């Protein structure tokens, strides 16, 4: 990745972090070393975690194929983390979100690449986080 693109990606990730932390201030952000998430958030009052993949809108068509292959690649083995896609546009603190993967009833990740991108709102972030936390608790019960 060229220097300018790299800095633009850092800015996009900073925007995503501002959006998420503004919505749920108790959320903890952890760095990710995996290739499908730019960073990981730990949901407040839960042990559930979500990988956050951040894309710039201008790069989305080019990135979607790669994202699809990467996301699919972790589905067969009891997947690592649910994935929240955050798409930002330029230098505005705003964006769109989609929950790309969440825990299914069988404890595996359910991928939904057709998940519709919805405009950011704090309520939407909290809704997604609640969905992940609820499914995570169900998965834990299943495992025990």
């Amino acid at each position, binding site marked *: 990745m060229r220097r300018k693109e790299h*800095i633009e990606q*850092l800015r996009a990730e*900073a*925007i995503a*972090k*501002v959006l998420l932390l503004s919505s749920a*201030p108790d959320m*903890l*952000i952890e760095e990710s070393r995996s290739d499908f998430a730019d960073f990981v958030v730990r949901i407040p009052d839960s042990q559930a975690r979500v990988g956050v993949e951040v894309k710039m809108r201008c790069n989305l068509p080019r990135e979607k194929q790669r994202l699809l292959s990467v996301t699919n690649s972790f589905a067969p083995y009891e997947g690592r983390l649910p994935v929240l896609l955050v798409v930002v546009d330029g230098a505005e603190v705003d964006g769109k979100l989609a929950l790309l993967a969440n825990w299914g009833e069988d404890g595996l990740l359910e991928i939904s690449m057709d998940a519709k991108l919805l405009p950011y709102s704090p309520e939407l972030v909290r809704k997604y986080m609640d969905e992940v936390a609820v499914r995570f608790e169900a998965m834990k019960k299943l495992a025990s």
Partner: protein
Amino acid sequence: MVATKLQEGLTECLKSLGGKRHIKSRWLVGGCQCLAKSLTLSRLEIEVGRASNSIGRLGEVIFEFTILRELRFVPAFLGDKWESVDYLVELADREQHGFFFVQVKSTAQALSNERFPSMPILSEKLESLFSYPAPTYIAFVDTNSRKVYLKAAMGRDRFTSNPPVELTPETSRTLEEEVSGYWSLVETSHLKSTFESKFG
């Protein structure tokens, strides 16, 4: 909220115990009071600590976004273990080879160029900032308006009472110029070419 509920619970508890005349009941009342007081305090401290951490984390990411906004700088978070600085920020233009350090102070209070409530900075932290041999700044972040204000921390005798300056696209350019200007005065290339390392 938690403290109020604990206090209400304690009051009820004391009411129910207070009528008893037996000395052991009084010990029990005293014990309950101490326990409840310490519980109330520790829960309060946890709540205040949580809120303060949340504001701090939000302030840091707002700073990251603001410093990245015009793509002039590349910030690197140094982690919570660093004592006095939170970020090392590099100039995006690699030709310039400049960098500076930043400590971030966040508040949920409204800040503006006209209104700037004092924010406590430990004097030993300030001294530590002054000791860095590079441009060093304190970034004050208003987490509600998502605005960032910068103040240089270059030395005790030069740390004025002037209010910090808001980081905007214009002042961001000024910041780039002054940091670049600082490093253009420090010619290090000859130091590197004559430096003899035992790890060569």
